[in-house]
């Protein structure tokens, strides 16, 4: 791509500097240092352009492409209409024009080597690694038909029709034979994964449609490679020397190339999964394995002249489940972002260089008939092929492909950089009209990417194609979906058919029994369940929205400053009471401590530690939020200490989890509502007072014991003053505090109407006594039902936090259910190892 000409050295350098590296720099050194170097010994500063030239130019190009991308997105209007790929091509054309004007040589073109070895793999790997497997395998039959039959059909019809027109003499005189046409047909036939991804990602058609087009574009690689190789060798052999045996060999090689490529991918996926199982102690290089091993799968199959795209696609598809389970959460994030970054970067560069490559008069050979007819033929035959195949498919498909879908399928047959790279790869010696092919391919690519890419969005809107709707994952949906899976496979079992569900069921059983055991870390096997994940996600979302809400309201009451040096100046002065109160109530609600099994799951992963130590640690960790700056000055190349943010996130997560269960428990409150309400009101008041008694940001931690008692008295006094009627109640409440017992779960009324209690607390009783109330784990003040509903402007995302009741039928079971969930306070977020 960054070909080094040896012409115009000085000017090259000048331009490189002037145009910000747009122009190629000459291959000859012009460093001023050279001249001086000879004369005067050691140089303080030398200018070594040639030394850094190649990487420098590469880096600059990437920078230009990336900056261009920023530029596009500055205007939302443009990007919402014009696909980015089209913009990049246009940009490439402009830049190519500048380079050409400056240099008169097309030194930067998209070379096949760079494309196939460096730019394509990240894109395909990204596609495979994030492939929605279920959808993909569910539509595998359809995808394969389109990919194999469709591509062969496109290649054959386009090639033959062009040949037919050529024979009629419409194209004039070309040094070209039937095989050349077929070769051209085979390279122009394949739908391109890069172009399809780039365009369809912005269109958001429904997922079935997307997976069909996208899957086709990935899997047709094997067909393209084989057809291309076969016809290229045929062309080399010369039309007369091709025997029937060669044709048979070609067909055999198709199976070898495709199945072989897939097999290589699967083997490497197995290796990769196995390796990640043992990377626990080298977390920092964990993500590297994913990339290196997948890349090796690509290179290996390239080496064996198998389908490299298939290899890396299937490597990604097969390893994703195990890798995602094995690697740590941070590594998973790293992998995700790195992969997306590489893929999107590669895509950007590809499209830009497609544009740049087009600016080269030496490759342009215009033949109107040939170019136009190619455009017509590929569109028409694509449409015919789609209609025919869909007609066949619809007899077997459960979800029919409607005519509208077929239009999108036909129209979405974009050609792209793969075709271009292949056509550039052609040997000009053997294929006499290479330049014509190259220019036609460029036209076709530009036409499909720019014109079709531009129009597909309005088309989809106009045809009212079913769009994909982005929905939040719902727990119910997942559960019911799971139920359906089992029902369907059972129905297939009972009706005695070996269907799709049957196979899936058997596979998942096999996977659970054998594959996962080998490939997954033991701890990962435990927690790996979709439903659990959704559950986790939802809780996390709740927690985050809770914090966000708190911050939006302006109260940072839940961010405690560290006791040491008040680096954060949080204003704890109570504001207008409603806001303050509501937030603190939210906070309090959260702390109600019912231990959750998520905790217990995590708990099991850890070694058991000294309980008391843990309690202390927990309390400190959980309630003393650290300011962010504090943890930044530790540097280690080999370890990433989980940041405080994550811990805090996790903690909030746990709180929310508790809260979720707690709101079930509130059902119990209904038993003696009135009394309860009074008491709640009482506490509410008490809480307000307590809040206001916290001085500005400085928590008196010097002497917790004393403070505790003082506060308690304070509280009691003040309440007595204000509401003598409730005196009795109140003191009762305080007694609660002192005599935290374990029998929350029992049916005794006291236990019931005191949701403050938690198994947790029972165990930290000793600790509780030593800590000021606002630092104690289970908050002693619980908002009343009224207080909860009074929270102003509860956003819709909060719905899961809103209290509600279940039927009284289930109440008892609920409380009983808490029994086994009691955990020692060991299950603390900070010691969770992911």
């Amino acid at each position: 791509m960054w070909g080094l000409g040896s012409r115009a050295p000085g000017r090259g350098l000048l331009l490189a500097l002037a145009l910000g590296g747009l122009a190629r720099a000459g291959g000859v050194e012009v460093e001023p240092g050279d001249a001086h170097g000879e004369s005067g010994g050691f140089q303080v500063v030398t200018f070594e352009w040639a030394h850094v030239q190649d990487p420098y130019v590469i880096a600059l190009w990437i920078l230009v492409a990336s900056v261009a991308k920023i530029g596009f997105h500055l205007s939302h209007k443009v990007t919402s209409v014009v696909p980015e790929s089209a913009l990049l091509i246009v940009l490439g054309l402009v830049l190519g024009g500048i380079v050409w004007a400056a240099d008169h040589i097309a030194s930067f073109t998209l070379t096949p080597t760079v494309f196939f070895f460096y730019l394509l793999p990240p894109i395909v790997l990204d596609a495979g690694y994030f492939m929605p497997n279920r959808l993909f395998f569910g539509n595998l039959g359809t995808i394969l038909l389109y990919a194999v039959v469709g591509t062969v059909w496109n290649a054959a019809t386009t090639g033959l029709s062009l040949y037919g027109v050529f024979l009629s003499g419409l194209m004039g005189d070309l040094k070209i034979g039937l095989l050349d046409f077929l070769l051209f047909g085979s390279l122009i036939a394949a739908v391109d994964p890069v172009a399809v991804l780039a365009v369809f990602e912005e269109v958001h058609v429904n997922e079935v449609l997307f997976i069909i087009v996208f899957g086709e574009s990935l899997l047709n690689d094997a067909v393209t490679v084989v057809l291309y190789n076969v016809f290229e060798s045929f062309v080399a052999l010369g039309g007369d020397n091709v025997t029937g045996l060669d044709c048979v060999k070609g067909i055999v090689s198709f199976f070898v190339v495709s199945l072989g490529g897939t097999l290589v991918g699967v083997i490497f996926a197995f290796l990769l999964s196995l390796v990640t199982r043992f990377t626990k102690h080298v977390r920092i290089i964990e993500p590297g394995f994913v990339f290196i091993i997948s890349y090796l799968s690509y290179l290996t199959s390239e080496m064996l002249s198998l389908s490299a795209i298939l290899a890396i696609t299937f490597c990604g598809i097969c390893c994703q489940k195990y890798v995602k389970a094995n690697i740590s959460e941070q590594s998973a994030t790293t992998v995700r972002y790195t992969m997306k970054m590489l893929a999107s970067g590669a895509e950007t560069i590809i499209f830009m260089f497609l544009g740049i490559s087009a600016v080269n008069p030496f490759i342009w050979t215009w033949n109107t008939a040939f170019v136009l007819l190619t455009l017509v033929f590929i569109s028409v035959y694509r449409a015919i092929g789609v209609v025919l195949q869909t007609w066949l498919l619809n007899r077997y498909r459960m979800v029919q492909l409607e005519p509208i879908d077929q239009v999108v399928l036909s129209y979405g047959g974009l050609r792209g950089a793969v075709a271009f790279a292949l056509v550039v790869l052609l040997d000009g010696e053997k294929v006499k009209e290479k330049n014509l092919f190259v220019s036609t391919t460029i036209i076709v690519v530009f036409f499909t990417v720019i014109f079709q890419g531009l129009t597909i969005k309005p088309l989809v809107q106009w045809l009212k194609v079913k769009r994909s709707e982005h929905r939040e994952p719902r727990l119910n949906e997942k559960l019911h979906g799971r139920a359906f899976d089992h029902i369907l496979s059972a129905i297939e079992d009972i009706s005695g058919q070996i269907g799709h569900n049957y196979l899936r069921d058997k596979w998942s059983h096999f996977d659970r029994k054998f594959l996962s055991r080998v490939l997954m870390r033991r701890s990962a096997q435990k927690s790996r369940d979709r439903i659990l994940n959704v559950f986790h996600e939802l809780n996390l979302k709740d927690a985050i929205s809770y914090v966000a809400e708190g911050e939006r309201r302006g109260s940072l009451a839940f961010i405690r400053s560290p006791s040491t040096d008040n680096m954060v100046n949080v204003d704890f002065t109570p504001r207008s009471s409603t806001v303050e109160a509501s937030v603190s109530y939210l906070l309090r609600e959260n702390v109600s401590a019912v231990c959750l099994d998520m905790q217990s799951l995590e708990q099991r992963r850890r070694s058991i530690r000294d309980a008391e130590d843990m309690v202390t640690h927990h309390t400190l960790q959980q309630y003393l939020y650290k300011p962010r700056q504090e943890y930044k000055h530790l540097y280690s190349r080999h370890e990433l200490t989980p940041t405080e943010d994550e811990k805090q996130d996790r903690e909030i997560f746990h709180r929310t989890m508790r809260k979720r269960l707690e709101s079930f428990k509130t059902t119990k409150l209904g038993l003696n509502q009135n009394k309860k309400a009074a008491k709640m009101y009482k506490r509410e008041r008490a809480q307000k007072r307590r809040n206001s008694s916290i001085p500005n940001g400085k928590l008196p931690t010097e002497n917790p014991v004393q403070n505790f008692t003082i506060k308690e008295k304070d509280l009691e006094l003040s309440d007595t003053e204000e509401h003598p009627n409730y005196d009795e109640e109140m003191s009762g409440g305080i007694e609660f505090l002192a005599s935290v017992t374990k029998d929350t779960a029992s049916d005794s009324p006291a236990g019931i109407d005191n949701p403050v209690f938690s198994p947790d607390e029972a165990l930290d009783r000793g600790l509780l006594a030593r800590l000021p109330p606002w630092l104690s784990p289970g908050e002693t003040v619980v908002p009343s039902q009224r207080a909860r509903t009074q929270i102003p402007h509860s956003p819709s995302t909060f719905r899961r936090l809103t209290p509600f009741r279940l039927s009284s039928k289930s109440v008892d079971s609920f409380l009983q259910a808490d029994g086994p969930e009691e955990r020692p306070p060991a299950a603390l977020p900070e010691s969770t190892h992911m």
Partner: protein
Amino acid sequence: MGAAHSASEEVRELEGKTGFSSDQIEQLHRRFKQLSGDQPTIRKENFNNVPDLELNPIRSKIVRAFFDNRNLRKGPSGLADEINFEDFLTIMSYFRPIDTSMDEEQVELSRKEKLRFLFHMYDSDSDGRITLEEYRNVVEELLSGNPHIEKESARSIADGAMMEAASVCMGQMEPDQVYEGITFEDFLKIWQGIDIETKMHVRFLNMETMALCH
């Protein structure tokens, strides 16, 4: 029924009732006889003969659904002791894919029927509500396939799901409001906008692809 119903009239009648083609009916009838051991009816025990079913975590619920009077359209509750071929077909017809010839109303109806089947499976005491207890029960069974998930996790997931259902169906609840359980209307609400086309359909083939049965 049983042996007699190879008569084409009866097949035609079944076709009309269940929507299966005669080929499919014949196919299913063969399977039915295989399951029942050439008896006119199937009892619960007969399902033990299907080896692949054993791995199914909600096996008992599914088998129960076959005998559920609500699904058989025979009554509001209770279980049948045995089912004949027609009943068998009735159950199977819940899983027929949507026909292209169906109009929108029929599609909606068929969707409702399918969901009702699922609902009945959840609502084991036939009171028209999925209570928390019932939901937990189902979730526990669903997750029992994974030996690493504990009962408590299943429980809290069910709790979470129930809360979600409540928030979907009731919106913001008043403090003294009580959510009794998921009614069928609520159930439909939960499913609103979710495509079940691929989730609740079985392709009944005309070809002979019998699974082993001992």
